């Protein structure tokens, strides 16, 4: 079970991780994109961190919505509307809740992915953040169904996301800036899938 206090701590850890990894994410994006993923996402999460004190006492739905809005307003690249929509949709799924059960997390994760698909008009296998998120969500739900607890299920999700990131190295980008590179995008891992893996890893560490 994750209450709002714990969730705020997870978001703080996520913001720190993104700040620490911003050069690495930008380097990945330099190879196949417009080279702004790390800088943009770090700016977005810095704005999120600043906003957390005023969100901390609210319910999980309101916290997630606030995070999403801060990302949309401050990122400045495609990851702003994509992660912003993901957090806002997750917030809508947890509206009014002050605690998140393992099942709530599955519902929020599903809603977040639905938001990314809607906003990006993207599918799995196009070398995007979905290639980390979708296998992760599937693995999480399968682990829960198999009777595992939340910590073990999130671990499965992280492993699946890691495999997803590796998979993005082998495929052609057909969405976003990287699609302009055509076959030259093969061999590079997707920056968005990588940042999604980092977000999940921070979630796992906190459990």
């Amino acid at each position, binding site marked *: 079970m994750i209450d709002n206090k714990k969730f705020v701590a997870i978001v703080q850890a996520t913001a720190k991780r993104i700040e620490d990894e911003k050069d690495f994410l930008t380097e990945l994006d330099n190879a196949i994109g417009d080279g702004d993923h790390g800088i943009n996402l770090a700016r977005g999460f810095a704005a999120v961190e600043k906003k957390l004190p005023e969100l901390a006492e609210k319910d999980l739905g309101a916290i997630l919505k606030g995070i999403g809005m801060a990302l949309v307003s401050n990122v400045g690249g495609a990851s702003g509307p994509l992660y912003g929509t993901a957090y806002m949709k997750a917030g809508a799924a947890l509206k009014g809740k002050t605690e998140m059960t393992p099942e709530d997390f599955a519902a929020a994760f599903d809603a977040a992915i639905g938001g990314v698909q809607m906003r990006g008009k993207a599918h799995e296998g196009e070398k995007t953040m979905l290639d980390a998120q979708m296998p992760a969500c599937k693995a999480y739900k399968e682990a829960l169904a198999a009777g595992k607890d939340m910590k073990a299920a999130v671990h499965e999700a992280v492993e699946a996301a890691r495999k997803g990131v590796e998979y993005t190295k082998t495929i052609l980008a057909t969405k*976003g800036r990287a699609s302009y590179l055509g076959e030259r995008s093969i061999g590079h891992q997707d920056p968005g899938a990588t940042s999604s893996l980092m977000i999940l890893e921070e979630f796992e560490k906190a459990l």
Partner: protein
Amino acid sequence: MVGIVIVSHSQRLAEGVVEIAKMMAPEARIAAAGGLEDGTAGTSFDRILAACEAVDAGDGVAVLMDMGSAVMTTEMVVEALEDHAVRMLDAPLVEGAVLAAVEAQAGTSLDGIEAKIHEARDVKKLA
């Protein structure tokens, strides 16, 4: 008069497109929403929102975008401004901006501008 907003990752590109559109339609209500607050490249939700509000005189707003996050961020602005008639138009940025500005200045409605833009999508530069 329908307002027009040009969204680009680059402030200079957005302003340049406005400049070209104004050559044909100096009276058009057209605003540039390019780049981020700190002057770097990117698309700013707040800038696009402010530009849409600034050019809306009650007849709606047509928005033209460059690519990627410009489209997605504008989509979120459209959702946030649900009480304004803000519509994204799918067109080459420069040609679309000139056409939309000329039509807007002539008093064409938002529906009319959208129809014109769709008609003009197959126009070739090298006939």
